[in-house]
């Protein structure tokens, strides 16, 4: 492993339709809160790492410039990282490499999106090559439904069972989101509501799908020496993993999903995790679609392949279970995409430092943050602990 890197501050905006502020003002809000949390100011920052979705999302093609002032980046090194859906976790990785290299003591990492400024599904359809795939990518819902259907069929899980487990995940997330002041969708739902909601892309119904959110998240990373001087809340990055696949959606196996498996494996190896269900206390699994979350349980080794539903049915991944997942309410209830992966990091930091308020997982020490992107080709992981 590289030299130790701490996360010493996080800041999140309230998410939703944030047309009350401009995109830079939204980012300013998150960054201000991260500075407050760390007890430092822009003068303490040595470099800034920023990212979002492809800039077609907001129609401003140089986002790191547009947002520079809002991040206090004037006069500093400024890097833009952007890996589509996995941007937030790639941002965290980039910040980690910055500090771990020994070149910077304190780095500000910012992810943001204002999905209500553009046409999110129209933008996402243009992520694919124009020759073969573009007409067949009905945004994210299309891709993830294809994957979920294949998964359920592969393991012969009956439709009713899958839908019931997905509905439980939806209800859990919606309940959790009510306890997260930054969450977008704040409604109490029932199993019945989820099962009968309008079909978006079969089997995915309205309450199985994430919203299009505006939101920003900022995280401050520091070297061990600098973190020691600050002497406040500290979480430590114990492992990182990222893995990519083929550009052609139909080419890879999206059920025994190599990029998810490998990303987790790399991060676990670095963090010394051999039994994730036992060694992790909380997991912020990237779940824009309820169904997909169960597939991640399998790829991340929380259970055997084909057994994802059981973790829901047995309550393992539910509040009070052995590995509560997405106590933040998850991506399902809040998805400003460029910020989303970084929100997972921020939530795990809050959890392992015991500052997650009403949604605190009691005694959480080590957590997993995850994001996914591409047309289901990229997965990234970060393991964070309250112990160095």
């Amino acid at each position: 492993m590289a030299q130790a890197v701490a996360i010493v501050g996080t800041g999140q905006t309230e998410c939703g339709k944030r047309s009350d502020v401009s995109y830079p003002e939204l980012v300013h809000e998150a960054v201000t809160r991260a500075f407050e949390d760390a007890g430092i100011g822009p003068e303490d920052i040595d470099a800034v790492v920023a990212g979002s979705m492809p800039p077609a999302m907001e129609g401003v093609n140089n986002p790191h410039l547009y947002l520079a002032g809002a991040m206090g980046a004037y006069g500093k090194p400024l890097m833009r990282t952007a890996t589509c859906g996995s941007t937030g976790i790639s941002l965290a990785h980039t910040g980690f490499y910055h500090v771990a290299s020994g070149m910077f003591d304190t780095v500000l990492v910012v992810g943001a999106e204002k999905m209500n400024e553009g046409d999110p599904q129209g933008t996402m359809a243009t992520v694919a090559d124009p020759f073969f795939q573009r007409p067949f990518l009905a945004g994210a819902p299309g891709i993830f439904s294809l994957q979920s259907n294949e998964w359920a069929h592969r393991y012969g899980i009956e439709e009713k069972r899958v839908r019931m487990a997905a509905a439980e995940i939806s209800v859990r997330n919606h309940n959790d989101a009510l306890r997260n002041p930054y969450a977008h969708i704040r409604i109490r739902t029932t199993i019945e509501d989820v099962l009968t909601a309008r079909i978006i892309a079969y089997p995915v119904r309205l309450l199985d799908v994430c919203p299009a959110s505006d939101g920003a998240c900022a995280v401050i990373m520091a070297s061990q020496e600098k973190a020691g001087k600050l002497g406040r809340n500290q979480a430590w990055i114990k492992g990182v993993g990222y893995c990519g696949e083929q550009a052609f959606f139909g080419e890879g196996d999206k059920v025994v999903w190599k990029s998810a498996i490998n990303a987790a494996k790399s991060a676990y190896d670095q963090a010394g995790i051999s039994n994730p269900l036992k060694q992790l206390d909380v997991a912020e699994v990237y779940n824009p679609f309820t169904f997909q979350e169960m597939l991640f349980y399998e790829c991340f080794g929380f259970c055997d392949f084909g057994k994802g539903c059981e973790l829901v049915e047995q309550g393992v991944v539910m509040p009070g279970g052995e590995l509560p997942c997405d106590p933040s309410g998850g991506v399902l209830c809040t998805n400003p995409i460029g910020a989303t992966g970084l929100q997972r990091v921020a939530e795990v930091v809050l959890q392992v430092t015991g500052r997650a308020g009403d949604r605190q997982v009691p005694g959480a020490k080590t957590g997993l943050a995850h994001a996914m992107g591409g047309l289901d080709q990229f997965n990234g992981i970060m393991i964070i602990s309250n112990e160095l």
Partner: protein
Amino acid sequence: MAEESRILTGYVSLPYKWAMGPATTRFYEEFRKKRIMGSRCGKCNRILVPARSFCSDCFVETDEWVEVSQEGSIRTWVLINFAYEGQPKEPPYILAILDLDGADVGLPHFVGGFEMKDLETVEEKVRIGGRVKAVWKENREGYILDIDYFEPID
């Protein structure tokens, strides 16, 4: 006055001229003749469809071109029931990943040729593992939509 936030509306429209390169050019020349071509990777031995100049996994150039079947089976499918900017057809419609006979990778395309009144009528026609066959357009331009859709045949 102070706390209002107005919305400015606008469009960004840009034109593109995408060079296909020789492999895709040739693939679509064959397409006009209703032939679906794959290319074999000499390293992993997979038949890749659409045919391409190098293997996505192995980083080696492909050399042998082979025709694959116009029939295959449905690896997975989804019924699209929402609208977005630039969409290729009116919803509802069916997207699928198809495993053509003779190919080692899946091809995304439409499944159609029947009425999609509701989920029940759709599920009568479409299932994972179900067999499909390419239905070509009369006028072909050398593009992926020269195949109008794949039609269920079992």
